[in-house]
């Protein structure tokens, strides 16, 4: 009873809270990092060096008036932020933080569900996430959100193909769809897949930027041309939900990249006995550290690169990434058969 119901529920509770807290503080990190890149200070007032800024922001957003535009489609308008947020959160169910962790003598695995179709689960959940954006664009009944929603859906669908092609080559390498199994396969192969599949990694990362609507592919929220993008008409907590969903998606993409290419919870060089003292650090801390590097990279790229134009974005997706992904898959499969 305890093992079947209480422990999984506790895990979900802890994970949800961890995700929400880290998502909140991601906003602070983003503002600080961008400020440092631009030789500014960033938020400084609330708490030491602005450390409590996210809490102030959250209180502000909660207290703000919640406006629904007069001619909006009320039901869909209310539904859209929820539809954007839920897939971002349930994707965490299959992320393997560690095989096992010791809590005061109780050993529990740090994966909520090790599905045998885990990788496909993440892809399918990501494909559901499109709805939030399209529906927000439609329900606002206003031209800029609608344009942004259409842009976003076209962008997400195009880049999903490239990402899926890339994931298939990883599956060919590892021979399993389970995320835990993929990490085990990297352990047995004695190499992180990023060294074997560099092309796939680059495609995943570019595709991940596009899937999460991050710069340089943040066309759905290009403020210079679309005022605010698909969430122009949203205010208060509903607006915040879109924001949180974007950051949660970033964490999911980083976590998937970590799992597939950087060995997940494995310490660096897991087969070198000389580095065995690194084994003191628990696996989930390695996972979190690796994920954090990716999150930093996301922010760094946003502070550095200018935005793509829409036709350039589509050309990159369809004429570069998808052919590259297919070529990579064919080469991987041929090499797998030969050796």
């Amino acid at each position: 009873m305890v093992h079947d119901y209480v422990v999984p529920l506790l895990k979900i509770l802890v994970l949800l809270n961890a995700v929400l807290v880290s998502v909140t503080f991601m906003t602070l990190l983003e503002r600080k990092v961008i400020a440092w890149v631009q030789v500014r200070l960033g938020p400084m007032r609330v708490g030491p060096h602005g450390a409590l800024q996210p809490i102030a922001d959250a209180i502000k957003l909660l207290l703000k008036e919640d406006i629904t535009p007069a001619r909006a489609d009320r039901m869909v308008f209310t539904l859209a932020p929820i539809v954007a947020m839920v897939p971002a959160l349930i994707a965490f169910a299959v992320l393997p933080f560690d095989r096992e962790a010791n809590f005061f003598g109780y050993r529990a695995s740090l994966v909520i569900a090790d599905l045998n179709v885990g990788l496909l689960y993440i892809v399918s959940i990501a494909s559901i996430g499109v709805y939030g954006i399209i529906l927000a664009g439609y329900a606002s009944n206003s031209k800029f959100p609608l344009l942004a929603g259409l842009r976003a859906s076209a962008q997400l669908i195009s880049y999903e193909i490239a990402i899926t092609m890339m994931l298939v080559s990883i599956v060919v390498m590892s021979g399993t769809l389970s995320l835990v199994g993929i990490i085990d396969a990297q352990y047995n192969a004695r190499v992180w897949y990023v060294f074997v599949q560099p092309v796939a990694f680059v495609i995943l990362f570019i595709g991940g930027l596009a899937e999460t609507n991050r710069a340089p592919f943040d066309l759905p929220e290009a403020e210079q041309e679309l005022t605010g993008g698909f969430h122009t008409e949203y205010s208060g907590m509903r607006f915040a939900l879109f924001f949180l969903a974007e950051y949660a998606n970033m964490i999911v993409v980083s976590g998937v990249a970590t799992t597939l290419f950087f060995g997940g919870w494995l310490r660096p060089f897991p087969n070198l006995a000389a580095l065995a003292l690194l084994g003191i650090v628990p696996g989930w801390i390695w996972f979190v550290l690796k994920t954090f590097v990716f999150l930093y990279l996301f922010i760094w790229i946003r502070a550095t690169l200018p935005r793509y134009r829409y036709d350039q974005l589509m050309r990159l997706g369809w004429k570069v990434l998808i052919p590259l992904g297919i070529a990579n898959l064919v080469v991987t499969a041929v090499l797998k058969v030969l050796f």
Partner: protein
Amino acid sequence: MLEPVVFYTLAALILGFGMLVVTARNTVHGVLFLVANFLCLAMVYVTLAAEFLAIIQVLVYAGGIVVLYLFVVMLVNLRRLPQGAPDRRRQTRLGIVVAATLLAEIAAILVYSSGQPAGAVAAAAAAGPARGNTEVVGMLLYTDYLVPFEVASMLLLVAMVGAILLARRDA
């Protein structure tokens, strides 16, 4: 004990959303009910030990095909058109009568066959454990059903070319 509860809840949701799809005035709402219906169906597939099918249902149906519907509905809805529906009553009555006849027919077959002994089924069940996983489906797809698989891929290619040709503005 849990299984009937899950089944009846999902069945109610599936049928409810299905009816909402058919009756929705606003087509965008109809598409949303369709997505909800497909997601509930995916959950039923999970209870039927068909995980791969469930994932494909979400990925291809809910995440692909229905997005396409939503796209078209939004493109078409941009110009607010009057939803004229002449000759409604006679057609509605006729349609419901035909559908009810069909349902009665299927139900009659089911009731008839449920009276038959299910010996063959039990024998098959003893033959081996069901593995509704990706490997089993993949092996079947790439060995016994390789030709249909290739034909399906050709069909998708043809459909893709056809769709591009049809939707082109200067066709």
